[in-house]
């Protein structure tokens, strides 16, 4: 029987069942332990970045090539017919007639869902505006499982910009399928959106809003840091909250031994450099895991069995 993700579009985390998430995470683990260079042999992947990206694009392209596949595509929509006014629907119809799968990033929300309606091959969302970035969530889940040995019943703190951070929203949705307990640590102006809290209420998932980073450090298995963007505040306001959501090595003394610090990167100053040398720092390994998570996804979408 074909795996449940075979020939499926990968658009949004809420489309995934718990079993499908587990399948990707397990497959990523297998590929990290036993690298394969044959799973995409003879397959051509279209890499369509209508908006620039560094990590996502390079890790997708690394994933394809390490698995023995080939890549066509572009790294910036400015050089494509989109610039001449072609609709995304038309672009995708054509690109999907060349490739076996299309990986895409686009500045508009909903672009990947729309593309999936016009594509003859699976579309994998590499980020659509401020909406979804499912492969980031998959690599986060893989990293959490790798460091904790399980996804079940973990305690996770999300810190920083919880309002605009799409990675935070999707990861919260995904972890709520595994009975997680959440602490949301954010300035009031960047609090978790109401709709996410309402979803958690409906599912009976416990969460606590906290304004002090120190208080949650001893309580959690995962500390998921995000960047508070200066441009969201006026200068005086930013000065007030700056520093409140910064993690330094000396704050980690009370942390559990299994506690890991994650960050979707790029970091600016919300994690000081001295944290890097502590056994809790895991953000660089997390970024590396992006390649394995994307390898897992591509392999499952393009092969009946892996």
């Amino acid at each position: 029987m074909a795996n449940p993700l075979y020939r499926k579009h990968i658009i949004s985390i809420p489309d995934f069942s718990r079993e499908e998430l587990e399948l990707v995470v397990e497959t990523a683990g297998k590929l990290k332990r036993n690298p394969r260079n044959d799973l995409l042999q003879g397959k051509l992947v279209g890499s369509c970045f209508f908006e620039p990206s560094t990590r996502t694009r390079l890790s997708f392209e690394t994933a394809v090539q390490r698995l023995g596949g080939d890549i066509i595509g572009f790294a910036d929509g400015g050089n494509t017919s989109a610039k001449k006014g072609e609709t995304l629907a038309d672009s995708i119809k054509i690109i999907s007639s060349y490739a076996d799968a299309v990986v895409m990033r686009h500045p508009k929300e909903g672009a990947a869902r729309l593309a999936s309606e016009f594509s003859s091959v699976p579309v994998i969302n590499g980020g659509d505006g401020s909406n979804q970035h499912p492969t980031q969530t998959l690599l986060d889940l893989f990293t959490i499982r790798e460091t904790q040995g399980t996804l079940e019943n973990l305690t996770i703190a999300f810190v920083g910009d919880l309002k605009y951070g799409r990675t935070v929203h999707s990861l919260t949705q995904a972890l709520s399928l595994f009975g997680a307990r959440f602490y949301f640590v954010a300035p009031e102006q960047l609090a978790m959106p109401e709709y996410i809290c309402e979803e958690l209420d409906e599912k009976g998932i416990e969460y606590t809003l906290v304004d002090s980073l120190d208080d949650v450090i001893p309580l959690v298995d995962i500390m998921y840091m995000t960047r508070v963007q200066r441009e969201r505040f006026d200068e005086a306001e930013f000065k007030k909250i700056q520093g409140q959501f910064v993690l330094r090595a000396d704050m980690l003394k009370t942390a559990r031994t299994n506690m890991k610090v994650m960050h979707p990167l790029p970091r600016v100053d919300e994690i000081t450099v001295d944290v890097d040398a502590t056994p809790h720092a895991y953000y660089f390994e997390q970024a590396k895991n992006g390649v394995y998570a994307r390898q897992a996804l591509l392999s499952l979408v393009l092969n009946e069995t892996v």
Partner: protein
Amino acid sequence: MQYTRTVEALKQGTVIDHIPAGQGVNILRLFKLAETGERITVGLNLSSRHMGAKDIIKVENVALTEEQANELALFAPKATVNVIDNFEVVKKHKLELPESIEGIFACPNSNCISHAEPVKSFFSVRAQSKDVKMKCKYCEKVFSKDIVAVVR
């Protein structure tokens, strides 16, 4: 007591009554009723015992479908929709919230891809305590119905 009809009786078609005053014109436009080419009578700010003031629309020779009636429920939940044949009411639609609504309202998110592409807007609809929430299929943003169900 002498009772005078303020709007002429309809032989055949649909009567949408008990529309909140001020919404009649919106409904007319949203459902493109004028484009049917049929004779339409519109009453605005009529007095109503229950509502104070109401609007009413009568469309000749057009029978509103169940689906269309339910779409009406979004902004005129207390409206009554009666289908008339030979001066008799042959069907009273009971308005229920639709599960989804396609192609009538534009997505309020200006950065949603649905605006510039050859697709119809699509929202899933969900009643939530006192509000009705609408989620765009494309950008996945959730809006209160009062933000979506307006004429632009």
